[in-house]
């Protein structure tokens, strides 16, 4: 079996909006540390027309007593059309991801995507700040690649429980990003310390935009700092999904809009949203 798209998308759909259901082959699926695993797939070129921040909806296998039914959303960690490669960085959270961890090289995995709206980088933004904790790095990693491609300066603040769990540092460094690490065990990841670090960056080289994901704490911090210094930003959010395509409306979250509080679908209007629109949870 080879990696293949299972159907033909209509020509009337613009190339960057096409969604594919495809069978991919597992190239490798190995732990990167105690908590996280890296899944590398051999993927058909059509499905690799992606934007950083988009995701795929993955059909985890039925395996070893695990019977996931719905698909599981996973951010694109890396996409390389030249190599025909699609990568995911994931943490075992429950039944579906536990089954995913059992996939072996050469096996096939059905994925749907690319899905959702990714991050935006405005032309006149030069200094980008990325603030990520835990598996949030998976979502933000392709942004670093894009920043390098566009010749932007990127600073990545990577936060984790302990230094061993810090991931993707080399990946970011190879892309020319400046790395600042903070960890709980070293007592450097608290909000006051982070705020100081970010204030320093704003006063120094300056920051044109913030990018973050996942954490309520980091959201609030960046919202405050963004409002104070008039710096725009984006956040990637999570919500439980069924269809992943915008059809079922199960993945809604509340957002601030001019008209009041509105519901938006994380799979369709997101997963990347304006930082100030997002609401804590």
């Amino acid at each position, binding site marked *: 079996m080879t990696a293949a798209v*299972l*159907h*033909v*998308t*209509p020509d009337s*759909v613009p190339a960057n*909006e*096409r*969604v*594919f*259901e495809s069978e991919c082959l597992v190239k490798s699926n190995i732990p990167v540390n105690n908590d996280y695993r890296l899944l590398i797939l051999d993927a058909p070129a059509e499905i690799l027309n992606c934007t950083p921040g988009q995701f795929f909806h993955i*059909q985890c296998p039925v395996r070893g007593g695990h*019977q*996931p*039914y*719905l*698909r599981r959303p996973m951010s694109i960690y890396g996409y390389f059309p030249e190599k025909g490669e699609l990568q995911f960085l994931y943490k075992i959270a429950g039944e579906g991801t536990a089954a995913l961890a059992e996939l072996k090289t050469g096996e096939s995995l*059905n994925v*749907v995507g690319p899905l959702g709206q990714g991050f935006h980088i405005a032309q006149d933004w030069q200094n980008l700040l990325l603030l990520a904790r835990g598996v949030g790095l998976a979502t933000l990693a392709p942004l670093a690649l894009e920043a390098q491609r566009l010749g932007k300066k990127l600073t990545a603040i990577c936060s984790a429980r302990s230094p061993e769990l810090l991931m993707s540092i080399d990946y970011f460094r190879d892309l020319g990003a400046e790395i600042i690490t903070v960890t709980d065990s070293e007592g450097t990841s608290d909000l006051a310390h982070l705020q100081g670090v970010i204030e320093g960056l704003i006063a120094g080289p300056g920051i044109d935009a913030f990018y973050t994901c996942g954490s309520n704490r980091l959201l609030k911090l960046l919202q405050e700092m963004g409002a104070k210094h008039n710096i725009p930003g984006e956040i990637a959010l999570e*919500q*439980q999904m*069924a*269809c*992943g*395509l*915008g*059809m*079922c*409306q*199960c993945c*809604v*979250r509340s957002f601030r809009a001019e008209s009041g509080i509105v*519901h938006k679908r994380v799979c*369709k209007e997101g997963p990347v949203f304006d930082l100030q629109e997002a609401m804590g949870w």
Partner: protein
Amino acid sequence: MVDLSVQIGDLSLKNPIMPASGTFSEDLATVFDLNMLGALVTKTITRGLRQGNPTPRVCEVSGSMLNSIGIPSKGVGHFITNMVPFYQAYNSPLVVSISGNTADEFARLCEEISVPGVAAIEVNISCPNIEEDGKAFAMRPASTLDVMRKLRAATDLPLWAKLTPNTGETSDVARAAEEGGADALVVSNTMLSMSIDVQSRKPRLGNLMGGLSGPSLKPISLRMAYQCAKAVDIPVIGCGGISTIDDVLEYLIAGASAVQVGTATFIHPTVMVQIIGELEAYLAQHNMASVRELIGSVRDEEAADTVVFMEAAP
């Protein structure tokens, strides 16, 4: 060439495969050409704006799912201005699903939505009727008859009545819908269910209870489709747990003239396209000229007479 077309009252469908309400939207057009489908059935709308239920709105239950999406709706005006024109670009007939809190409100929406571009109206009478303690219209024959008469008077378009499995009177409700003027029955909606996380002891759905859909629902809705096909002369459209060609064949053999595919599209967005191809291949392989040869071909023989006594437990 095999003939996949079927007839639902006055409406001809190019094939018997269509999406189920709430599991389909214009978004699926980014995946495949919607003209491949027999009909396009939209998510239920209400007259006014509605937010829907609290999250979590879905959970898994052993190879199936529960949902408590509710009916978030942008209202009838938004639908007519934005959605009807969108679907006019497709030649598959547009079937609009509607519901209302009372029979009169329901009928008003039915009238308002009877606009050019809409080929049929699916009336979701499985939704709660607030004048009857929130019991769904289609739980009882009398409330079914009452609402169907009002809906019938409100439109000249074909009316498809969507029934609920949350009733003990399937055949009587089916006959009441037919008597009230339905042109077809859609059998069926989701079954009221519940799931609790034993660790946290919290119900898994924000709304506490929700509707079961997916493979676990199939034996129940198949049984209902069979009962309804026996009970009425109008076409029955099977719905519930369909994910393979064999599931489709089962419904057609049981007496359904067409089927709706719901939750399976969440698992495989291209499943309907695949099933249409497989249905064509099946008919060719079995030397059948038309899919209509399958409809109601169940070999129940004498046992069929007892079906009326099977309403409660066997």
